[in-house]
């Protein structure tokens, strides 16, 4: 479209501008009446109104009435951040019988009245509303993309997140296939004993969940299986699953629980590897975590047999399950155990060495403080003769009932020593005369940096969480990964279980370190999101996707090359003017709407609906309009 035509179109529309006082939040700093008067004079603006609360029923009614009466056919609301009320106003427009995509939002609270004051605030607010009106003049009605959706979900991962999500989905009537890489269900939860802070038995939780899943008529479980290929899009994914021959033959006719492995579904498993396809509407990725493996020599790990990790301690204690004055590990009486926190977590550049791939785990694993304190309390409770030392940087017992565990540990006689990250404790062999195999040298900041030596029969490293390596899924499904290597949701607060690829959800510790409760919360949220997506048999998607102007397109293919989601754009043969030509074509359900194609088209023949380049240019023009006018007067 030529510039003149764009201008013509812009001014042919009737933009309604609705400016909110926000009860004084805006109008205390922005003269909203002055903004209204200025906007009234802008070409293309049919009406400008103000209201104390535009989001209130009377405020929304103002907009609806103007639309119904034909006074306006485009809408700009100038109010708070769009994250709060953009949807509110789109819905108000829809209820008024108009297309919800004729709407543009001007953010004059968070980005004006809360950060600027006086005349300058009013000037900026007016300019931003003018820019929004300029864009609104170029908006056109759009139709949501409707795609049929297979009424089926696939859950990848059979840990607590995957089991919870599968059960919740199936309970809502959605058939589910659960694909688990290992031979057993239960994930890392099956490798625990008592769960902090309530003391529940992890095996019982796993059994209950796995039983519910294995006996559910809507759930099919494949263990020893992995997704090896994916194709398709929201509502219409095609997965290829490969199931291996079980490493250990299991022919039981009933599922059985194997301690510290998990629930083994009833056999038999296939006698040779097989591959099969799944057509599924939504995917929940619940691939979990692995415990950090200390490197050789880290706090003596690998050098001394008496240095073990917390998961190993938990297992050994559970397998022993005896009471006596002293804890016994591998037949040895443990008179003194030293537990070192933050191993493999909160690593600091320049202090902690990077791993072989050059990475550091700079995040807090969040659950290990409580897990360590839980183990310490258990030792003190069941083996009161064993002394427990906790060497920590900070204690982070967030969450209900967890701080109490810290207090209980202190009451139970656990001795706390605090170290600075650059003065990490040193685990060394003790002198033969010391009577202990190991000792830990530590500079304790709680005693004003006194250098102390802790004798130990056992050193336990409180290891953090690392996401499982799912690079194959990341590559296949185009999943975003954070710098911490955990999967990255669209927005941590507003869309916490959604991946940017429509129809793919994330649940549990593949996303971040979570405890069991948080994992189940995330799984429940992902299940509900997936179930509501599939409930109707079709899905409606925002139409903010690429659109090709076939008249302008010359078939250069630059957009196809730049496209970040393979399959979203393709050159196809079509008939134009009686000739067979190759032109770009968008598959809307696959398009991410990122606009990578827009920038590279030599013919300007592709744009993202609802956020076109010319709309952005019109906004910039409005922002610099006062400068242009001043220049003209010079």
């Amino acid at each position, binding site marked *: 479209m030529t510039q003149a035509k764009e201008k013509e179109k812009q001014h042919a529309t009737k933009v309604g501008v609705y400016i909110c006082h926000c009860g004084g939040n805006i109008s205390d700093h922005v003269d909203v009446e002055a903004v209204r008067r200025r906007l009234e004079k802008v070409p293309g603006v049919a009406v400008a109104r103000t209201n104390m609360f535009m989001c209130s029923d009377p405020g929304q009614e103002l907009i609806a009435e103007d639309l119904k009466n034909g006074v306006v056919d485009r809408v700009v609301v100038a109010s708070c951040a769009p994250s709060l009320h953009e949807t509110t106003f789109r819905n108000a427009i829809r209820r008024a019988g108009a297309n919800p995509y004729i709407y543009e939002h001007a953010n004059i609270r968070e980005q004006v009245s809360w950060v600027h004051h006086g005349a300058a605030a009013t000037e900026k607010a007016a300019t931003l509303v003018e820019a929004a009106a300029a864009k609104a003049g170029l908006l056109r009605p759009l139709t949501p993309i409707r795609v049929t959706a297979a009424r089926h979900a696939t859950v990848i991962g059979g840990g607590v997140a995957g089991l919870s999500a599968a059960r919740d989905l199936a309970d809502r009537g959605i058939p589910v296939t659960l694909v688990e890489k290992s031979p057993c269900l239960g994930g890392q939860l099956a490798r625990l004993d008592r769960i902090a802070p309530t003391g529940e038995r992890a095996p019982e939780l796993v059994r209950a969940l796995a039983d519910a899943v294995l006996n559910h008529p809507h759930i099919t479980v494949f263990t020893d299986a992995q997704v090896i290929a994916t194709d398709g899009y929201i509502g219409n994914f095609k997965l290829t699953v490969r199931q291996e021959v079980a490493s250990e033959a299991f022919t039981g006719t009933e599922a059985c629980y194997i301690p510290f492995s998990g629930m083994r579904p009833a056999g038999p498993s296939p006698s040779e590897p097989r591959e099969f396809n799944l057509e599924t509407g939504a995917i929940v990725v619940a691939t979990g975590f692995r415990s950090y493996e200390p490197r050789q020599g880290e706090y003596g790990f690998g050098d001394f047999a008496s240095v073990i990790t917390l998961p190993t301690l938990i297992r050994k204690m559970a397998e022993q399950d005896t009471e006596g004055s002293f804890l016994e590990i591998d037949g040895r009486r443990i008179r003194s155990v030293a537990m070192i926190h933050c191993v493999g977590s909160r690593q600091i550049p320049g202090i902690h060495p990077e791993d072989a791939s050059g990475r550091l785990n700079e995040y807090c694993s969040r659950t290990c403080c409580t897990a360590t304190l839980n183990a310490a309390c258990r030792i003190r409770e069941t083996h009161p003769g064993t002394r427990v030392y906790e060497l920590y940087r900070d204690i982070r017992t967030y969450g209900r009932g967890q701080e109490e565990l810290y207090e209980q540990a202190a009451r139970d006689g656990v001795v706390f020593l605090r170290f600075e990250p650059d003065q990490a404790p040193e685990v060394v062999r003790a002198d033969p005369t010391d009577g202990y195999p190991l000792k830990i040298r530590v500079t304790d900041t709680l005693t004003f940096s006194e250098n102390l030596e802790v004798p130990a029969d056992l050193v336990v490293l409180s290891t953090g969480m690392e996401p499982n390596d799912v690079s194959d899924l990341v590559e296949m499904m185009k999943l*975003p990964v954070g710098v911490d290597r955990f999967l990255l949701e669209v927005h941590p607060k507003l869309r916490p279980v959604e991946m940017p690829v429509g129809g793919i959800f994330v649940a549990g510790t593949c996303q971040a370190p979570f405890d069991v409760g948080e994992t189940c919360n995330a799984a429940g949220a992902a299940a509900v999101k997936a179930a509501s997506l599939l409930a109707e048999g079709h899905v409606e998607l925002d139409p903010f996707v690429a659109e090709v102007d076939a008249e302008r397109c010359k078939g250069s293919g630059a957009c196809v090359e730049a496209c*970040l989601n393979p399959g979203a754009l393709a050159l196809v043969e079509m008939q134009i003017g009686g000739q067979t030509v190759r032109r770009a074509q968008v598959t809307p359900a696959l398009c991410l709407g990122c606009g*990578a194609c827009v*920038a590279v088209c030599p013919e300007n023949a592709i744009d993202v609906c609802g956020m076109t380049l010319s709309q952005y240019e019109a906004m910039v*023009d409005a*922002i610099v309009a006062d*400068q242009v006018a001043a*220049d003209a007067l010079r």
Partner: protein
Amino acid sequence: MTVPSQAKGNKILVLATESCAYPGADSVGQAHSTYPTNVYILRVKAPVLFPERFYLDCFRKGIAGIIVMSCGEECPYDGAYHALARRLDRVYQAMKAQGMDIRRLRLTAICTVCNRAFLNEVNQMNELVQKPAAGEPGQENG
């Protein structure tokens, strides 16, 4: 069209990603932290949408400085950040060729709670665009 080497005004355009930097700017507002009024924030899905000429046109129209506030390595569109970085390299080359101060265009990553980083970026750019000599030839490597 050649872009004037010196900006006409002092307006700063911020292209802020809807997933990260735009909510980040809202977070600055929620904290009531003030910053210069000549900062104008546009919400974008991914700044990879803008071709080289968009930036040069903005400067030609009178925008003094542009800050592209992306999601950085945490971009939800796999590959978009690197494509954007390569594109901005080409814009820098064009700016240099036209004698413009390349500090007037800045690529940065701002998260949803990066209040301090956001304020640093806009204040630094404001300092640059307020200087009378900003944008004059010879400043580009400063």
